[in-house]
């Protein structure tokens, strides 16, 4: 399926990616060629085939409901772009 520029703008928004106007056309072309490759799947006969999520069909392990994580807040915040009083800072969201 070929995408148009509008599709790409919408996908970029959903993915929260800035794509410059000057790059939209080339991006559209390349994404369309990748989707062209993916389209070969359509012809595959998959009626009644169980989708595969894990090679050995393992299921999610459960563990005791106890605290295992230790506190690393100060350490983790040292590598954050902006923090204050133990909180991560972002531009104002609520007026």
């Amino acid at each position, binding site marked *: 399926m070929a*995408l148009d520029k509008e*599709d*790409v703008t919408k*996908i*970029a*928004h*959903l*993915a*929260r*990616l*800035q*794509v*410059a106007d000057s790059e939209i056309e080339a*991006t559209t072309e*390349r*994404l369309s*060629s*990748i*989707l*062209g*490759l*993916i*389209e*070969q*799947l*359509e012809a*595959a006969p*998959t009626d009644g*085939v*169980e*989708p*595969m*999520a*894990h*090679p*050995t069909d*393992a299921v*999610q*392990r459960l*563990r005791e409901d106890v605290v295992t994580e230790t506190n*690393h807040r100060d*350490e*983790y915040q*040292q*590598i*954050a*772009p*902006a923090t204050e009083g133990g909180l*991560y800072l*972002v*531009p*104002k*969201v609520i007026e």
Partner: protein
Amino acid sequence: MHTKTLKALSNALAAGEVSSQELTRHFLDRIKQLDPGVNSFITVTEEQALAQAKAADEQRVAGNATALTGVPIAHKDIFCTRGVKTSCASKMLDNFIAPYNATVVEKMNDAGIVTLGKTNMDEFAMGSSNETSFYGPVKNPWNTDCVPGGSSGGSAAAVAARLAPAATGTDTGGSIRQPASLCGITGLKPTYGRVSRWGMIAFASSLDQAGPMTQTAEDAALLMNAMAGFDPKDSTSTDIEVPDYTADLNKPLDGLRIGLPKEFFEDGLDAGVGQVVQEAIALYEKLGATLVDIELPNTHLSIPAYYVVAPAEASSNLSRFDGVRFGYRCKDPLDLEDLYKRSRGEGFGEEVKRRIMIGTYALSAGYYDAYYLKAQKVRRLIKNDFDEAFKNVDVIMGPTSPNAGFKLGEKASDPVSMYLSDIYTISVNMAGLPGISIPAGLSNSLPVGLQIIGNYFDEARLLNVAHRYQQETDWHAQVPAAFV
């Protein structure tokens, strides 16, 4: 000293012929002298390496040494290393100092292994040529006009140039085996779930697997002994016993049944590569193996299915890079949306953005069944092909890559042609099986790898089959002329 295998270095350390500090300094000097022409390292951890080496020497004196105490290796820059930059070759993580060690790194540290540094790679492991790195492409030591393969191209090139005796890699669609093939080294992708993914920056979680990149199968076995095992911190880690991977290396191959999938020898395979692979298979026949023609009829669907599953999982995994808690943040964001969009738009490279967008599209409302669910069903078909084949054969053999190292820039502008270079490796990840690439010869003076695929958790047999070949040949011992 630098041409010795890990096994030989381990013996030399045990015999007191060399100290870990001497060995580590030797490799650090080589990296300093020769890596500018290869670009295989992003970070060299000189100070830490020498401290680790000193501790290793002390451990040996105290009588507490393991087989690997004091041998130096390199880690792909996708593994978190505490206190050391862990960039995943992305501008997004250029400033990221990991606050903890990946389980793989932790286990290797516990075994007394010294870390020389962090190797270059395709950005977020997305690529087959190492050209998508924020830190520039890696050069193939056999011909520096050529790519080393990817995404673990830095690890492969470092081992090929003997700048490190061994390295770790990760393989989502061929990222250990394909660069191993193109650089003339041994690279093992274990069964999905065999080696912990914890602390390994996630690309496609249902496919990612870490493994060793070495000169020989014997060295890969030694490293697997240190790397493999159950990890409660990885929710898809498998809790089954880890064998001693060195135990069966010398087992004779009499009666070994080798499956040859006809789909691996059809159009698209370079003639020179095909010839090298046929010669390797002929040698196995001489060693007592029997050849069985098999079919893997859904092979052609593995690339299309992969380019749904991997980008879909990547788009979800990479949503954590948002400029808020760590990594790159754009200058002067206007509002929160601008912060997200510009941090990600400026922090990610082109290929990473393309895959995030493909994945976002495949998972978006109305398309999930047609893309992701369909791809997961096709994945089952691919797995069923292998299950059927392994009823009649012990291992499957063929080329690792359809071509030897191609020229830098040759495929960079055409993503689809780049994707097709993983045709023989991707189906193995889709099925979750183990596979190994070993050096089998040269085509136009560039290395060619033989791929051996095994059944689930049959790594010991792969290493045995690879080791026997390496007892009869010396392709794995050849070093590119500029690095002897």
